[in-house]
């Protein structure tokens, strides 16, 4: 089953090209349709939060954008260029790994379980991509890494291995590591879910500081409704692999239109 790609533009052009665009994106695992013809735009510098019930496809959206998953149909654009496809003789063809690597360099991601490299120090984790991917000298890489470790408040932990850091500290190193690569888009997948309640604010404070600073575009999946409400430019409520409802935090949390959104928010509020 091959899709007719001619209905998708080769590039996005115009004044308001979004930083990220999902067009008609479908993702299946066997018979299970996880994302169903998803359309979603994120503007440059925007902070968009994704909320929704378990299994609604929130993580999958981020993973596809990070190219950790392939897509079954549709196109994802990043910074005006297709990510999942590339242009060849005026047509969109599946992207080569070289093309994917080029576009992927614009994206960074933080994971629920941090995924720091356990055999490297905090500094080593931050320097790894700078030296091995961007080709910076060790001195430049160290300088840039230290700026970021400083920004997340962990300069003095530079020589510690992850096993000797708390969860909150590990996640802050992971954020520094991702930011060191200077991505245009940052993805956060439930970055506070694995943390003890008392250290959650260490991490949310770092994210809070990223908002508005630079023109970093952010896409965040979270179960922390209060944080989502406070920090987001826009909140998307996912249900069954599609955006059921989206809007400003005030509108979505205080005046949800859709019944499923109301039910979800009530259930979450009850649980707290």
């Amino acid at each position, binding site marked *: 089953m091959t899709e007719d790609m001619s209905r998708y533009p080769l590039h996005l052009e115009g004044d308001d090209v979004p930083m990220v665009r999902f067009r008609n994106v479908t993702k299946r695992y066997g018979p299970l349709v996880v994302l169903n013809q998803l359309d979603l735009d994120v503007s440059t510098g925007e902070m968009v939060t994704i909320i929704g019930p378990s299994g609604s496809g929130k993580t999958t959206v981020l993973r596809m954008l990070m190219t950790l998953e392939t897509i079954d149909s549709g196109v994802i654009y990043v910074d005006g260029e297709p990510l999942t496809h590339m242009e060849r003789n005026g047509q969109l063809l599946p992207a080569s790994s070289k093309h994917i690597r080029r576009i992927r360099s614009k994206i960074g991601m933080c994971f629920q379980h941090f995924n720091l*490299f356990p055999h490297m120090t905090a500094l080593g984790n931050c320097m790894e991509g700078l030296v091995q991917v961007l080709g910076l000298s060790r001195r430049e890489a160290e300088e840039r890494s230290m700026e970021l470790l400083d920004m997340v408040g962990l300069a003095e932990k530079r020589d510690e291995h992850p096993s000797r850091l708390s969860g909150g500290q590990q996640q802050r190193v992971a954020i520094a590591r991702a930011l060191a690569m200077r991505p245009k888009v940052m993805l956060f997948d439930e970055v506070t879910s694995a943390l003890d309640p008392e250290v959650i604010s260490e991490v949310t404070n770092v994210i809070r500081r990223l908002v508005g600073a630079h023109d970093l575009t952010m896409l965040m999946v979270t179960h922390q409704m209060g944080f989502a409400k406070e920090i987001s430019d826009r909140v998307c409520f996912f249900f069954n692999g599609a955006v059921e409802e989206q809007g400003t935090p005030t509108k979505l949390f205080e005046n949800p239109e859709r019944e499923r959104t109301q039910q979800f928010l009530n259930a979450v509020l009850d649980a707290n």
Partner: protein
Amino acid sequence: MIEWRWHLVWELAPRFVDAAGKTLLAAGGGYSIAVVLGLVLVLAQRTRFHPLTFAVREFVELIRSTPLLLQVFFVFYVGPQFGLVLSPWTAGLIAIGLHYGAYLSEVYRGGIESVPAGQWEAAKALNLSVVRTYRRIVIPQALPPAISGMGNYLVGIFKDTPMLSVIGVTELMHTATAVGAESYRYLEPYTMVGAIFLAISLPAAYLISRFEKWVRRTLGMVK
């Protein structure tokens, strides 16, 4: 009752020291081949080129399911019939290198599979190439869990070197047999072989477990 003759032991000592050196050389040489070959085999099995992964998997199975002795004979005696004439040493090293390479590839595979998927994903999110991901992220983490298996096979290859005596590699076993044939004394030579094997195997096993702990500590992977 046959009595133990110390003077024979002293007389034979130089020959046995020399033979022990050759045994170590055979074990070390075979192991070096196996360590590298095992890595090649495991990486080949993990490519997405299915004919290659299939061929390599079958090859590893074949090696693991047949006796080392047969493989030694095959390389040494069957090789020449296809125009591949090898000295006993070369044939012996190739045979044990292949044999243990197949086993080590399985040890490596276990080590690599013990590295969580999240590590691969983090490497990808940093845009590390596949080669760099292996070299910098996966192999260093696959190593500590693989070391005890690698150590077992190091001791194993050492203990299997007598197999090479059958094709004329003058290692310990070969020497002891030669002494027996010359002097009709078997007790001292074979006891000496046993003592030498013991004297090397036991400390080696201990050193390997120390080494494993040291690697874990060096990589910062102790809690």
